[in-house]
C-alpha cells in the first residue's frame, strides 16, 4: 500500500487537542504514522484547506428490512433523485431512502467514513448485513433492538441481570451487533397487543415490568459486559407533546449507575423527545429543563435529530408512534410486528416552514445544539431519514456556525414560532473545532471506537479534507461557502486510499462491519439450553439457524470485549 503525506492543512483533531494548527499528516498502510519517506509518498497539498478525521455518524437508518420497505413504499422519492453510473460507481436512486451503494457514495462525498445503523430487529440481522455488504466505502455497525425482546423482559422481570447479560452477549454475537438499542422500551411489546405505555412507570402488559426497570436493567447489563458504547435509547412517548418529562425521567433513572463521570446513556434524536405542551395546539419547546440537566450531568450524551424542511420518509421501530404519525398526516403507511422482538413503521412526511409544529421542531434541535455548552455531549444527526436526509448535514453545519444563516431560516418560518423560539436570542456560533467534535470526534468517543474520529498515531487513516480556508474566510458571515465545502469534500481518504476527490467518488472499496465479540463463555453455556427450548416455543426460526455466521459479512471486523460476568 502506498504512503500518503497531507501537507500544510489546517488540522482539526479535537481528541488530540489540535485546533486548526498547520501541520502535516502522514499515512502508511492505512494508518496514521509519525512520518513517511517524502520521496516515495504521494503528496496531497492541503494548504488553505481544513483537514479533519473522517466523519462518524452515530445514528442513521441506512440499511435493513425497514429501510428497504421504505424504498419500496416511495417510488416518487426515487424519481426525483437519480444518479447515473460512472466508471467507478454504480447507478442508484433515492432522495430520502437512497439505495445502498448511493448511500455509501453520498456519505463519502461529504467526508464521512463511519456510519452506524441504529435499529436492527435481531430477526432481520441477515437482511441488514446483506445490505451492509452492498454499502461501499463506509465502515459500519448496527445496534440490535433489545428493549422489547421477550427474553430480556423475562430476565429483567426476575431480576436475573447476569443471565440477561449472557443473553445480550450471545445476541450481539449472533446478530453481529454493536450496541444495545432501546426503542420506546416496553411500548413496542404493548403495541403488539394494540397498546402502548403511557410513561416510564407504566407496566408492560403481560410482563408487569416498567420501562424504568428495562432501561436500568439494560444499563447494568451494558456496564457488566463492558460494551464500548452506552445504551442507545429512543425514549417512551417520543413525538408527543409534553414528552420532555419522560426524557428527563429516563436520564435521571440511570444517574446512580454512572461510574467515574462516564456516560451511561445516549438519548438519541433528542429533538423528538423535547416537546412541551398538552396537545398540538399548545405545543411548545421543552428544551430548557433538558439543557439544564445535561449541562449539569456527565452521564448523558445526546444527538440532535435536526429537522430539515423537506419531503422525507419517517421510519422507526416505534410502531405506535408511526401509527400516530399516519393518523396526523393521512399519508400512506407501513406497520409491522417482528415476532417476539420489536415492531416498526414507516410514513412519508413533509416538514413545512409555515407549520408551527414543524418549525418549532427545527428550533428545538437548534436550541439543544446551541445551548448545551459541551459539544462532547451533543452530536449532529438528522436521525436520517426521520427528520431529514443525511445529505443535509452540510446545511446544518452552516446553521450551527452562523447566526446569519439561522436568521435567514427564521425569516421564513411560522410567525408563532418566531415568538416562542429561543433561537433568535442565541449568539453562539460553532467553531470548526466544535464542528469536528459534533460530527466526528464526539461521536467516535461516545461509540468507543478507538481508531476512529482522530488523527493520532495508529488511528485508521480516515481523513476528510475540505476546501475551506478559515484564515481568509469569515465562516460566520459566509454560510453558503461553508455548506458547499462540506457538501463536496476536496478529498476523502479511507484507510489510506483516496476515495473522493473534488466531490467525486474515484474509488469505492468495501468498508468493514464492526461487531462485538463479547467474551462471557460460562454464563452463555448456562443459558444456551434455556434458549434452545424457548426458541422452539417462541420463534419461527430455529436456534441453530438464528445466528448470522461471520463469513456472511463482506469484511468482518470483530471487536473483542471482555465482560465482567463469569
Amino acid at each position, binding site marked *: 500500500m502506498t504512503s500518503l503525506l497531507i501537507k500544510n492543512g489546517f488540522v482539526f483533531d479535537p481528541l488530540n487537542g489540535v485546533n486548526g494548527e498547520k501541520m502535516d499528516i502522514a499515512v502508511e498502510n492505512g494508518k496514521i504514522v509519525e512520518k513517511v519517506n517524502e520521496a516515495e509518498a504521494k503528496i496531497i497539498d492541503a494548504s488553505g484547506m481544513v483537514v479533519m478525521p473522517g466523519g462518524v455518524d452515530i445514528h442513521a437508518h441506512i440499511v435493513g428490512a425497514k429501510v428497504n420497505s421504505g424504498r419500496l*413504499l*416511495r*417510488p*416518487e*422519492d426515487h*424519481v426525483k433523485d437519480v444518479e447515473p453510473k460512472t466508471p467507478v460507481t454504480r447507478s442508484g436512486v433515492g432522495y430520502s431512502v437512497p439505495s445502498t451503494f448511493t448511500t455509501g457514495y453520498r456519505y463519502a462525498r461529504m467526508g464521512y467514513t463511519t456510519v452506524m445503523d441504529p435499529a436492527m430487529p435481531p430477526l432481520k440481522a441477515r437482511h441488514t448485513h446483506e445490505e451492509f455488504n452492498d454499502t461501499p466505502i463506509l465502515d459500519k455497525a448496527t445496534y440490535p433492538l433489545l428493549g422489547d425482546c421477550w427474553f430480556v423482559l423475562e430476565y429483567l422481570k426476575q431480576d436475573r441481570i447476569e443471565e440477561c447479560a449472557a443473553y445480550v452477549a450471545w445476541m450481539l454475537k449472533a446478530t453481529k451487533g454493536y450496541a444495545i438499542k432501546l426503542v420506546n422500551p416496553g411500548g413496542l411489546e404493548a403495541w403488539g397487543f394494540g397498546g402502548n405505555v403511557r410513561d416510564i412507570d407504566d407496566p408492560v402488559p403481560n410482563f408487569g415490568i416498567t420501562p424504568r426497570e428495562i432501561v436500568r436493567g439494560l444499563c447494568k447489563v451494558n456496564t457488566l459486559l463492558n460494551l464500548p458504547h452506552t445504551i442507545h435509547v429512543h425514549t417512551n412517548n417520543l413525538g408527543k407533546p409534553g414528552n420532555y418529562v419522560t426524557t428527563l425521567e429516563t436520564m435521571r433513572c440511570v444517574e446512580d449507575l454512572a461510574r467515574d463521570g462516564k456516560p451511561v446513556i445516549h438519548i438519541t434524536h433528542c429533538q423528538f423527545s423535547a416537546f412541551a405542551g398538552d396537545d398540538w395546539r399548545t405545543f411548545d419547546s421543552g428544551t430548557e429543563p433538558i439543557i439544564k440537566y445535561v449541562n449539569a450531568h456527565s452521564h448523558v450524551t445526546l444527538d440532535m435529530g435536526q429537522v430539515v424542511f423537506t419531503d422525507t420518509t419517517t421510519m422507526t421501530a416505534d410502531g405506535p408512534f408511526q401509527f400516530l404519525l399516519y393518523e396526523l398526516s*393521512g*399519508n*400512506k403507511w407501513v406497520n409491522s410486528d417482528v415476532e417476539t422482538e420489536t415492531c416498526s413503521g414507516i410514513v412519508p412526511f413533509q416538514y413545512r416552514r409555515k407549520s408551527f409544529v414543524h418549525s418549532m421542531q427545527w428550533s428545538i434541535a437548534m436550541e439543544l445544539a446551541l445551548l448545551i455548552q459541551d459539544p462532547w455531549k451533543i452530536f449532529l444527526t438528522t436521525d436520517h431519514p426521520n427528520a431529514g436526509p443525511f445529505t443535509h448535514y452540510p446545511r446544518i453545519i452552516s446553521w450551527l456556525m452562523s447566526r446569519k444563516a439561522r436568521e435567514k431560516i427564521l425569516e421564513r418560518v411560522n410567525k408563532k414560532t418566531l415568538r416562542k423560539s429561543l433561537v433568535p436570542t442565541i449568539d453562539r456560533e460553532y467553531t470548526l473545532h466544535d464542528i469536528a467534535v459534533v460530527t466526528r470526534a464526539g461521536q467516535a468517543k461516545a461509540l468507543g471506537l478507538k481508531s476512529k474520529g482522530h488523527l493520532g498515531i495508529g488511528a485508521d487513516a480516515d481523513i476528510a479534507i475540505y476546501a475551506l480556508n478559515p484564515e481568509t474566510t469569515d465562516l460566520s458571515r459566509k454560510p453558503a461557502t461553508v455548506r458547499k465545502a462540506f457538501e463536496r469534500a476536496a478529498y476523502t481518504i479511507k484507510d489510506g486510499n483516496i476515495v473522493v476527490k473534488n466531490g467525486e467518488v474515484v474509488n469505492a472499496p468495501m468498508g468493514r462491519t464492526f461487531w462485538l465479540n463479547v467474551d462471557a463463555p460460562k454464563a452463555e453455556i448456562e443459558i444456551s439450553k434455556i434458549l434452545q427450548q424457548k426458541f422452539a416455543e417462541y420463534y419461527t426460526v430455529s436456534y441453530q439457524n438464528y445466528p448470522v455466521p461471520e463469513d456472511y459479512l463482506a469484511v468482518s471486523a470483530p471487536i473483542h470485549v471482555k465482560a465482567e460476568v463469569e
Partner: protein
Amino acid sequence: MTIIKLAPKRAFKTPVNAQTITPDAFQEKTMSEIAELHVWEGNRRRKLGELFHISEEKTAGSESLRIEVSGDLRKVRWIGAKMTTGEIIINGDVGMHLGEEMEGGKITVNGNAEAWLGSMMHGGTIEVKGNAGDYVASAYRGSTRGMNGGKIIIHGNVGNDAGNAMRKGVIIVHGNAGQFAGVNMHDGAILIKGNCEGRMGADMHGGKIVVCGHVKSVLPSFTIEAVRKRVKFEGEPVEGPFYLFLGDLNTKGKGKLFIAKNPNQHLSFYEKLL
C-alpha cells in the same frame, strides 16, 4: 409567428425520450442548433436532427413559437414536458407522458394520446381530438401530487385512473371514461360527458366529478346528499338532473360526485334515503 415542423425520419422501434421537443428548448435557437439537441432512443444518445426532419416556416404576426410534429409518434414520449410557453400541434398518434409537468402554453393532438397525458401538469392547456390512455393528469406512482392546474380536454374516451391525486385544474372528457376516474383526488373538477366504468372518486378527499352518462354503481363509501337540477362546471351550467353523492367516507373526504339521474334509473333506490 415561427413554425418549426418535425417529422420522424423512420419508424421507431424503441421508445424515444424527446423531452427536448418543447418551445422552451427551441426558443432563440437556429435550425442547426435545434438539430443538435439531444434525445434518447432507447439507451442511445442521439441528436434531434438524426431522428427527425426539421423545417422552419415564418409567417407574419406575433413572435410566438409553434412546433408541429407529424407522423407516427407512438414511440415518442415526453413531448412538451415541463413546457412553459408556446404551442405544440401533433398530427398523428403520440406516445406516453405528453406534456408531463407542463406549466403553460398549449398542446393540441390531432389523433390519439397514450397514457400519462399531462401528468403532474401545473398550467396550460392540452386538447386531444382522439382518445387518451390511462393515468391522464395523474400523479407519479406512489405520489399524492397529481395535476395542479391547467386544463385538459379530450374529445374521445379516456382510460383508467384519469385525474389520479388531482389537486387543481379541469379535465373535460367528451367520450367515456374507464374505472377509477378521480381516484385519490384532492381538488379540481372532472366532467365526463359519456359513461363511466365505475369506482369514480375512490379515496377522494375533495373536488368535483360530474358524470353525464351511465354508471354501473357508486362506491358504497359514498353517501347520497341531494338531487340537483343542474350543476355548475367552470361557471357554466350542465343540465341534469343529477344525484349528488359525498365521499369518500373511507378517507373522511368531502368530495362531490354528481351522477346524471336519467341514464341511471337503477340508482333510484338512493332517493329513498334522502
